């Protein structure tokens, strides 16, 4: 594992510092007497950090563990092992009560606008709930005022304050979710596929909102997504995950210009570009086979079963994350050069 202070200037404050995160889920059989028959290696040794004001994108396809990492960072699930420092405090050793208070520092925006809001609560109740739980976050204002302020900030008509989620479009619901996440004035927001379920014309609106809010409130983002094009617009650093591990990480410009890990390269070549001429000129890498099951990951390098470069060493030795260029790391025995 790499040293986590390697490439950062000393003054930059870290808002998240997660080391060696592991999350295994047991697979149980039986109704009355459960017996564990296997383990899902959802997250298998992930180290990452987030600097103040920075946006770290975690990229990967389904089953890679990126959403699980998000939930771990929020303390919604305890890691099987590893530590997570949020603004200097280790949340893995906190009491429930302390953790509840810590929630004010890190919040979440979820993917599905249709299930992330309680259908039986009005907008006012949904955005107001953070204040019900943490009344001191009101700072003297009354709740309705606070809710209206937030609605205004995310571009929702104040007239709609008593409406129910089903009366809104997907994009508007997502805005409600953003308002809810902002209520407690967090330092970090984990956004789990925030625009993936939205219409094309609305995606840009919500992305722009996130960018504006970042500038206005000095937020730090962990942006989880499978969409490399979206990520490119907002990320400062990127971590690519595959089957529970980070296979490549580095500054945004480096990763897009010169992806070093074959998987990253394949991902990029598969991402569509809406330009028929450009598409024709692209060389697409087609990956063979299916993604292996996280309950039974391949030995050595997990990507080897689909990698065109795989050799015997790949099955025997798991490649560590090594530096390719400053700040740009990849876990591969035969990283791409250019």
């Amino acid at each position, binding site marked *: 594992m790499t040293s986590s202070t390697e490439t950062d200037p000393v003054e930059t404050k870290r808002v998240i510092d997660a080391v060696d995160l592991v999350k295994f889920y047991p697979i149980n059989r039986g109704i009355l007497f459960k017996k564990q028959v296997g383990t899902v290696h959802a997250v298998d040794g992930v180290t990452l950090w987030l600097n103040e004001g920075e946006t770290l994108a975690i990229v990967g*396809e*389904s089953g890679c563990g990126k959403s699980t990492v998000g939930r771990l960072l929020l303390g919604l699930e305890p890691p099987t092992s590893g530590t997570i420092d949020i603004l200097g405090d280790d949340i893995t050793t906190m009491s429930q009560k302390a953790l509840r208070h810590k929630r004010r520092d890190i919040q979440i925006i979820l993917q599905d606008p249709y299930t992330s809001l309680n259908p039986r609560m009005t907008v006012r109740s949904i955005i107001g709930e953070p204040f019900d739980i943490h009344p001191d976050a009101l700072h003297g204002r009354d709740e309705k005022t606070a809710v209206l302020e937030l609605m205004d900030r995310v571009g929702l008509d104040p007239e709609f304050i008593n409406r129910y989620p089903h009366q809104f*479009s*997907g*994009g*508007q619901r997502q805005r409600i979710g953003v308002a809810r996440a902002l209520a407690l004035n967090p330092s970090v927001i984990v956004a789990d596929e925030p625009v993936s379920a939205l*219409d*094309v*014309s*609305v*995606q*840009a*609106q919500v*992305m*722009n909102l996130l*960018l*504006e809010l970042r500038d206005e409130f000095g937020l730090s983002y962990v942006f989880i997504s*499978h*969409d*490399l*094009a*979206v990520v*490119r*617009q*907002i990320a400062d650093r990127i971590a690519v995950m595959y089957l529970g591990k980070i296979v490549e990480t580095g500054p*945004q*410009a480096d990763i*897009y210009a010169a992806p070093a890990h074959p998987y990253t390269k*394949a*991902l*990029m070549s*598969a*991402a*569509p*570009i*809406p*330009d*028929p*001429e*450009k*598409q*024709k000129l692209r060389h*697409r890498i*087609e*990956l063979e086979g*299916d*993604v292996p099951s996280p309950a039974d990951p391949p030995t050595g390098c997990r990507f080897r079963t689909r990698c065109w470069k795989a050799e015997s060493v790949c099955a025997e030795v798991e490649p560590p994350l090594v530096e390719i260029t400053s700040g740009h790391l990849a876990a591969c025995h035969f990283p791409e050069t250019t």
Partner: protein
Amino acid sequence: MSDTLLAVDELKVEFHTRDGSARAVDGVSFTVERGETLAILGESGSGKSVTAQAIMGILDTPPAEITGGSVKLRGRELIGLEESEYRKVRGKQIAMIFQDALSALNPVISVGEQISEMFRIHEGLSKSDAKTATIDVLKRVKIPGADVRYGNYPHEFSGGMRQRIMIAMMIALKPAVLIADEPTTALDVTVQAQIMDLLSALKEETQMGLILITHDLGVVADVAQKVMVMYSGRTFEQGPINEIYTHTANPYTRGLLESIPKLDERIGRLPAIKGLPPSLFNRPKGCLFNPRCPQATDQCRDGEPDLVFVQPDHGSRCWFAQEVFASDIKH
């Protein structure tokens, strides 16, 4: 024999709900020729899926109602066909694949059985002949170990595999036209590419007509020849894909293209189309896009434009189609 496999003319579909009647599809026309791929692009509420379902004759009527237009498959009118007749056409002459293979496949019957059944029912093949034909078509869609996996059930396959199986089932009888409704939306990007390639290859092989319905402008970029952009039940632009993507004549299409994040460029804040797609019950007067259009004028608010052809095969529904076309120099 004409090369036009499917000809849709002024198709109109209405939905009757308690909030009133909504025109989900309001006069849509297009053709699909042999060996051609047409992409129907649109966001939610555009009517693209309803169009497909109307063509297939699988709309729930009520609340839906086809209120006008014609759909001719190889010259034969489909609208108004008796259900028993339609059933003979579906699967054999025109087929449809969906976003979610799991909902199209019966979970308690093996995949081989499901496909064989189609052969037995529509082509009267014997059990063993049907099985051979099934394994054949499974091989065509590149299911590894097709003869062994014949007896597997849908849940035993990955998402991408299931999509292939659904494709296999639908092309088994060699339909003239295949409609794919958001076939890759639920799949990972690396699998998306595989499926799109497969569809393209199958189309080339059989010279069938392929209609791709999607909201994702990127996914069809190297597969489609023709594009039709729908908005709120209407055709807003149609023409060859190269034209539409790089030389559009419609502000909506342009707005969409500009608002899509590009993989090869970091722009940050993208120019977004303001506002929301209109509710089908409260459509704006005049051009349907005018409340959101950066170039809207009084003319746009007063009356709805017809389709204007800036090129013989490139049409755009905009009062300023020519101007937009002229100004949209390839960037």
